[in-house]
């Protein structure tokens, strides 16, 4: 049995689920649930409702598979009480009662009243009980028995596969050979951050699974939306609405979505882009969505936004993906390139039902049904959807100039990189195609765009997804790192082959690229003279199932590293996010285990969807596809929960807690984000950095397109502010320069989009935010 098959075998984890968990009346809030557990009627209930997910904690991560009880003791009296009842509730059972008194954030999230909390085998909160009430304790006992009856089996491989341990061990053994500084780590501090955002999927990534582009997930973007110098986070969602989380300092966030007026809940969200479209000094927000229209929000300057889509010219309705702001004609106003993938859904809509897994009521939201052959869309010209270039006319109005400027691209494009490929001072566009050849459009003086893909890049990744231009080896020019997701779908491989290029299994009739493809990630090294060489394998840039990347200097040594979100979910195995440490500009070194990004705390899989085998889901294709015949079905309870591997889609690298080092925030598929906080500032107190905030005057205010060169001792660093912070992610925040051992900046030079070159002579102090304003 292959590794993949073994995982697939283990994927179905049945439990007899409560029939009541889909109903609104069984979805009590914290307060009401506390009171209801002690009333008589609830004593008779067969299954307690699902209230919410238990936060993932190291000390409880291995408790998956059996119910357990968390205690939050707030006084010595309560401690005595809990100790007294511990014997009562554990009698005759292998039951863990875990004291989480010091986990204040968890307590606030799941049990603000300081009670006992019953958690089921799937890490879901199923009841809260007052330890002082005998009646409540009786209710706990009754509910506990019910939960025990639900559990049939939770295979350990789902949450804690053996190959991850082997992989971790192998990588850790390489740590000493990495020259770059790596004696620091990341830890997921989402609970402590206060962020409660939950990404939710449409059914076609779950119980109605099919190979359709919904599985690309949603983006996350970052900007200081209210001018308090703290970076705020906007999460995009497929179901249930996008959310804006305001940074209140010290790594904490608060949900201000409603207050800020940026709630988008009636459409499947895809990406988010922050950029100052009206040059008034605050970042505006553009959100792309599926079919129901993209949305443009104007920032009113005080943390509130106004929907100005109508009349803006940016309300395109289609299969939009990433939106990239840049000033193609250098008139001082940001234009936007909108990447449209291609038609992967039909006009037909259907209802979202996936939320029931979380014990929430169905929302009534609908989504467009995906084509069963969506992944062959590139074979059908009628499904092409041209990407768009919009010119900013001023006054918050945009005009589609794609055709007029010769930028008529019908590739299956999900993102784009604005980069001056031919070094003529005009920002060009590199367009990755997720199903075919990438394309390059050279900007001819802001007057037209000329196609030059094959001439400049004879071979490109077949399934290009994410892209980032940055100076890998600090030689003063921009290299291009492109991730290839779709080539990795031609064959399901084991973890041992993840650093290899794909052994392409698809036919030439499907690929249709006629020998022009690389089947895996590409790293195009710029030779500084207008040529690019593909060097991904020699640099160690290959990985498996990559979506996109965020690049910045995670160890502040002066060389940009990369975080590559990499995963699939149900029905496939776990995919490992790659953290690639740039080892002195010579090659990338795999370091996700070394730096604590992997394995995730709490396991690698979560309940993905629920099936009502005798009701609504009877005969669903997914049942047969999972190999469940009549005999197998006869052994299952009426309702089963199917687990899926967790997986990241989008990411942003930025300093979220303002401690000078860089952290990582992700947007996951069907789960909470990860808030990976770095401890570099503690582990290497003498580290050195510079943040550069650019304020354009003649140029666009966000200074997108500006080139900054820093000289610090013998280090010469160069970065371009392009806003591109990850897959489906476009942000607006200061550039970050790690300075290694340098303690001061000797020289800083800004080449503004207007053409103005500004020099800030040193010495300037390191470890500061330096604001540079373009001379009028």
């Amino acid at each position, binding site marked *: 049995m292959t590794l*993949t098959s073994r995982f697939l075998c283990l994927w179905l984890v049945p439990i007899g689920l409560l029939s009541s968990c889909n109903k609104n009346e069984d979805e009590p809030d914290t307060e009401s649930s506390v009171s209801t557990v002690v009333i008589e009627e609830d004593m008779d209930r067969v299954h307690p409702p699902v209230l919410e997910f238990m936060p993932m904690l190291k000390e409880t991560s291995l408790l998956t598979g059996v119910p357990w009880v968390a205690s939050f003791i707030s006084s010595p009296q309560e401690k005595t009480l809990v100790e007294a009842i511990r014997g009562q509730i554990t009698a005759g059972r292998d039951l863990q009662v875990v004291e989480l008194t010091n986990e204040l954030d968890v307590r606030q999230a799941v049990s603000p009243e300081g009670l006992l909390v019953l958690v089921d085998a799937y890490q879901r909160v199923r009841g809260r009980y007052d330890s002082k009430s005998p009646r409540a304790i009786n209710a706990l006992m009754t509910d506990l028995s019910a939960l025990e009856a639900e559990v049939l089996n939770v295979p350990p491989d789902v949450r804690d596969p053996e190959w991850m341990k082997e992989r971790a061990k192998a990588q850790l053994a390489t740590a000493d050979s990495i020259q770059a500084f790596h004696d620091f780590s990341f830890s997921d501090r989402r609970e402590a951050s206060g962020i409660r955002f939950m990404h939710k999927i449409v059914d076609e990534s779950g119980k109605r699974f099919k190979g359709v582009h919904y599985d690309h997930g949603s983006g996350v973007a970052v900007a200081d939306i209210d001018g308090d110098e703290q970076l705020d986070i906007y999460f995009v969602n497929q179901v249930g609405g996008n959310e804006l989380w305001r940074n209140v300092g010290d790594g904490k966030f608060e949900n201000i979505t409603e207050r800020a007026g940026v709630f988008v809940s009636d459409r499947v969200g895809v990406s988010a882009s922050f950029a100052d479209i009206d040059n008034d000094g605050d970042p505006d927000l553009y959100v792309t969505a599926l079919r129901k229209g993209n949305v443009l929000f104007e920032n009113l300057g005080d943390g509130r936004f106004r929907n100005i889509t109508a009349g803006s010219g940016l309300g395109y309705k289609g299969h939009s993906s990433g939106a990239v702001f840049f000033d193609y004609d250098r008139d001082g106003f940001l234009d936007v390139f909108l990447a449209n993938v291609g038609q992967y859904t039909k006009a037909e809509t259907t209802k979202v039902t996936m939320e029931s897994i979380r014990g929430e009521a169905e929302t009534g939201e609908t989504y467009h049904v995906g084509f069963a052959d969506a992944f062959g869309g590139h074979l059908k010209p009628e499904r092409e959807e041209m990407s768009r270039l919009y010119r900013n006319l001023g006054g918050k109005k945009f005009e589609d100039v794609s055709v007029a400027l010769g930028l008529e691209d019908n590739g299956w494009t999900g993102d784009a990189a604005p980069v001056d490929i031919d070094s003529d001072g005009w920002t060009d566009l590199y367009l990755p195609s997720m199903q075919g050849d990438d394309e390059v459009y050279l900007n001819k003086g802001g007057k037209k765009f000329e196609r030059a893909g094959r001439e400049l890049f004879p071979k490109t990744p077949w399934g290009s997804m994410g892209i980032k231009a940055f100076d890998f080896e600090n030689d003063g020019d921009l290299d291009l790192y492109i991730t290839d997701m779709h080539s990795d779908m031609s064959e399901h491989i084991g973890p041992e082959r993840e650093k290899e290029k794909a052994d392409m299994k698809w036919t030439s009739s499907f690929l249709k690229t006629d020998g022009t493809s690389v089947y895996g990630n590409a790293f195009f090294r710029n030779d500084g003279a207008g040529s690019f060489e593909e060097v991904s394998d020699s640099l160690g840039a290959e990985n498996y199932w990559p979506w996109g990347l965020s690049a910045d200097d995670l160890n502040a040594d002066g060389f940009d590293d990369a975080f590559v979100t990499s995963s699939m979910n149900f029905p496939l195995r776990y995919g490992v996010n790659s953290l690639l440490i740039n080892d002195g500009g010579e090659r990338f070194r795999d370091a996700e285990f070394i730096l604590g990004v992997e394995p995730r705390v709490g396991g690698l899989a979560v309940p993905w969807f629920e099936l009502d085998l005798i009701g609504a889901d009877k005969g669903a294709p997914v049942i047969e*596809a999972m190999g469940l015949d009549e005999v197998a079905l006869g052994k299952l309870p009426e309702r089963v929960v199917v687990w899926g591997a967790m997986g990241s889609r989008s990411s942003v690298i930025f300093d979220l807690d303002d401690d000078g080092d860089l952290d990582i925030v992700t947007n996951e598929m069907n789960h909470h984000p990860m808030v990976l906080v770095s401890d570099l500032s503690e582990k290497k107190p003498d580290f050195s950095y510079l943040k550069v905030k650019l304020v354009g005057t003649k140029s666009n205010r966000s200074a997108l397109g500006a080139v900054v060169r820093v000289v610090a001792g013998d280090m010469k660093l160069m970065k371009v502010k392009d806003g591109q912070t990850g897959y489906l992610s476009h942000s607006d925040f200061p550039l970050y320069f790690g300075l290694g051992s340098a303690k001061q900046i000797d020289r800083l030079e800004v080449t503004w989009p207007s053409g103005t070159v500004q020099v800030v002579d040193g010495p300037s102090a390191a470890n500061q935010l330096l604001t540079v304003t373009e001379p009028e």
Partner: protein
Amino acid sequence: MKRNRFTILLLLPMVVAVVLWAVLPRHRRAAMSSGDDLVVEARGYGRAWQFSYGDARSDGRLVLPVGLNVELRLRSDDFIYVFSCPDLGLKEIAVPDLKFSVGFKAEQVGTHTLAMDPMCGFQLAPGKTMGTLEIVSQSQFRRWLLNASK
């Protein structure tokens, strides 16, 4: 008399062949007399193959004669399928509304697995296949086809 018997014995197979030809349905006849020796339509739907030989149909079981040129015309009603027989090195896609085909001539009798490819919507069941390809002698094929068309 002996001469007559000899003539009858000589002509009998030809007469049988002519009669068989006459009773064969017209489009099956056409399938066997095109540029290739045999044309079969393979249609994917519901993660399974159906094979059509004129008016004869077979679900999941593709029976072909050895030594004849075969054109397999691939169609799909829903997902993207891959007609894949790793043993014989055959691989081609079937996509709704598009036409693809694969031509080959089997040199040896034998039974082979038609693999299920990840592109067929999804592949969850471990080891699941999409049917078999049976290469049989030409006479066996004719008998099978006759039965299949009843």
